[in-house]
């Protein structure tokens, strides 16, 4: 089973070993003869059988002879038969088996619907990508040849019919996950630890429909361990059988078949045209070879800067609420549908006292200029912008010029209640210097006519947990947020057809400001490094937000604003114990 998740070093922070093909081959050789492990009894339904599987479009023809309940011989495309270990499980009329090809870095997973003899063959191999530990896959549709019978006409097909579902799964290994399928090309998974502070992660997925009840789902943990998981999901019984192949964070080989029992978490909306059930929604790159697909690899593509490079970039000049801040500048361009900035703070003077944090004094001169001072220090002039997402509640943001970590404050101030929450962005985190970190500060607002809240504060909330909201920032720029854990924001990018496409995620925080009004952030850790902060008004279904980002072009703060739609709610509260604060 997978190594236990370590909340202190989450998946995106773990430095997975760059395994060599030789190391991988040595590990595979040990299990190629025995077949995969299994916590549940493996089926002997195939023992003594001989089958030939034919696949379409240049795929392999596989001739099997199952000599025992864990031994087979296989001939690929009429070649010499080789002996290997295998493991098989049966779920109703679905049979799943998997084996490796001894002496190679390859193997297969095969799913057969024994009622129709239609089969899906998944070829698996290591070494095909630059990170050799990442499992590659190619999927072939086909059937089991039956003497004297014509080939069945139907095939298992790529589909979007699984999109929008969510399940809690517990494998017979004890491995527990929440799995969200808000995309037709990616999935989002949370390895449950019982602590309540889990992060969710994303991986490219395949969704193949066997029929209305059974689906084949795959996930490859690209950018992380590279592990591949395939499961056949029985929607009505909420059960799964599957296989897992990969190397865990201790570089131990995971190769096993599993059974899992699930709990239904819900179904959120899909945004394709009615009647569109097409799968394979992300086009395969032109000229791509076997196993080619588009995979989002943000760690590879983001510019990574040192602390000195960050200081130099910031010294070049910061851009605060500039109309456009240029390529790669975080949240720029995400405000075409934003609300206009307001001048409601102009002329006001007030103080914010953060609990365990700084005391910030403000003198606001105009719609875009204020002065701030921290802990009674010198006044500093800064450019800012403000929005009023609900009467009396202002979101405003500014950079703290001169701060050693180039801090930026995104502040929600409720003047009717004297309460403040700040998402304090900063740079020079221990991992990548230009990646934003965030701390959440709660406090009170003091000034003429502002009521004293006493001990009351804004507080973290679970109201957003499990929700999915779409955001349309500008023509052609839409996404969907999925608040998958109390500390995770995931984002899904729609394809042109409205299907969920690529998905990624990062840490998040969720604060209730008023009924129907929430202050939320997403943090693009190990992924461009942007801190996105938004006030979500669940009544107007609009947000007002501020992005904070540092790249080679410098430090920027920019407006975020989009129209929202409520895509639905997954019922996941019970999986996360309440935590105070």
């Amino acid at each position, binding site marked *: 089973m997978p190594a236990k998740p370590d909340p202190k070093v989450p998946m995106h922070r773990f430095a997975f070993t760059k395994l060599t093909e030789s190391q991988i081959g040595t590990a595979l050789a040990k299990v190629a003869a025995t077949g995969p492990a299994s916590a549940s009894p493996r089926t002997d339904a195939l023992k003594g059988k001989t089958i030939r599987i034919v696949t379409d479009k240049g795929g392999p023809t596989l001739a099997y002879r199952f000599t025992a309940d864990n031994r087979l011989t296989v001939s690929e495309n009429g070649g010499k038969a080789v002996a290997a270990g295998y493991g098989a499980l049966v779920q109703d009329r679905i049979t799943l088996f998997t084996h490796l090809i001894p002496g190679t870095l390859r193997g297969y997973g095969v799913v057969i619907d024994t009622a129709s003899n239609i089969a899906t063959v998944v070829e698996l191999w290591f070494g095909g990508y630059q990170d050799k530990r990442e499992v590659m896959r190619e999927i072939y549709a086909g059937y089991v040849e039956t003497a004297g019978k014509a080939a069945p006409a139907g095939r298992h097909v790529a589909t979007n019919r699984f999109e929008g579902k969510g399940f809690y799964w517990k494998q017979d290994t004890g491995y527990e996950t929440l799995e969200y399928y808000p995309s037709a*090309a990616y999935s989002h998974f949370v390895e449950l630890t019982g602590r309540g502070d889990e992060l969710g992660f994303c991986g490219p997925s395949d969704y193949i429909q066997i029929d209305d009840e059974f689906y084949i789902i795959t996930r490859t943990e690209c950018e992380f361990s590279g592990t591949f998981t395939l499961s056949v999901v029985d929607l009505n019984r909420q059960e799964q059988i599957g296989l897992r192949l990969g190397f865990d964070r201790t570089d131990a080989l995971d190769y096993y078949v599993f059974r899992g029992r699930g709990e239904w978490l819900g179904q959120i909306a899909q945004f394709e045209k009615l009647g569109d059930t097409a799968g394979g929604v*992300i*086009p395969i790159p032109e000229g791509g070879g076997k196993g080619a697909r*588009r995979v*989002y690899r*943000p760690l590879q*593509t983001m510019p990574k800067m040192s602390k000195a490079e960050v200081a130099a970039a910031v010294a070049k000049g910061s851009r605060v609420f500039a109309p*456009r*801040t*240029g*390529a*790669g*500048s*975080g*949240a*720029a*361009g*995400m405000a075409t549908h934003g609300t206009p900035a307001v001048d409601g703070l102009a002329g006001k003077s007030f103080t914010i006292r953060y609990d365990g944090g700084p005391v910030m004094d403000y003198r606001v001169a105009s719609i875009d200029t204020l002065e701030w001072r921290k802990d009674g220090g010198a006044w500093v002039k800064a450019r800012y912008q403000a929005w009023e997402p609900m009467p009396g509640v202002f979101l405003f943001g500014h950079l703290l010029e001169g701060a050693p970590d180039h801090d930026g404050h995104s502040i929600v101030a409720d003047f009717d209640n004297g309460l403040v929450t700040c998402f304090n962005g900063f740079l020079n985190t221990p991992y990548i210097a230009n990646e934003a970190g965030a701390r959440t500060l709660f406090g009170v607002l003091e000034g003429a006519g502002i009521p004293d809240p006493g001990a009351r504060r804004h507080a973290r909330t679970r109201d957003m947990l499990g929700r999915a909201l779409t955001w349309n*920032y*500008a*023509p*052609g*720029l839409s*996404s969907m947020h999925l608040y998958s854990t109390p500390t995770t924001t995931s*984002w899904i*990018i*729609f*394809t*042109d057809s409205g299907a969920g*496409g*690529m998905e*990624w995620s990062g840490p998040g925080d969720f604060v209730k400001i008023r009924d129907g009004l929430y202050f939320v952030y997403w943090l*693009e850790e190990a*992924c*461009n490094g*942007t801190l996105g902060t938004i006030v979500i008004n669940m009544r107007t279904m609009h947000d007002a937000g501020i*992005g904070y980002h540092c790249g080679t072009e410098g430090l920027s703060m920019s407006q975020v604003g989009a129209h929202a739609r409520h895509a639905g709610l997954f019922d996941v509260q019970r999986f996360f114990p309440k935590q105070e604060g």
Partner: protein
Amino acid sequence: MSNDREPTRRAFLKGGAVLAAPLALATPAVAIAADDRAERLRRLEDEAAIRALHRDWLRRVNGGADAAGLFVDARAARCLDAAVCGLTGDPAASADTIEIAADGRRASGRFLCVVETQSRIAPESTLAQMALAQGGGVVRERARRLVSADYVKAGERWAIAGITLREA
């Protein structure tokens, strides 16, 4: 809008009437009628030729073909924004207008069209980068526009002198 550059059809007709009046003093009625019919026929043939030229231009724009050969100056053929990928006549529009100058050598046309544009979003944010990475990030828009065209007759052939698009 000024008509300095674009003589109107009314101007053409007025010019024609002024030219015809002296002839009426000395020419038999039958001859006048024959001239008028010939003039009207020529005008109808010119209008038909210009409409055909406009249709040819639309076909080339929509087919992504080179339209330079339809223009007096090939440089004027680059009159559309690079984002324009389609241009179709607006079926809901009132009749298009073609006005031919009195000299019969110049003309102007106004056509209501639906313009389709297609442009890639800039990779300014993570979301935009992801949209582009998955093969999307293309913004397609449709808008009604008024196509104003100037035409010149060179020999017996009409050619496009220039085309501008503006909000309808």
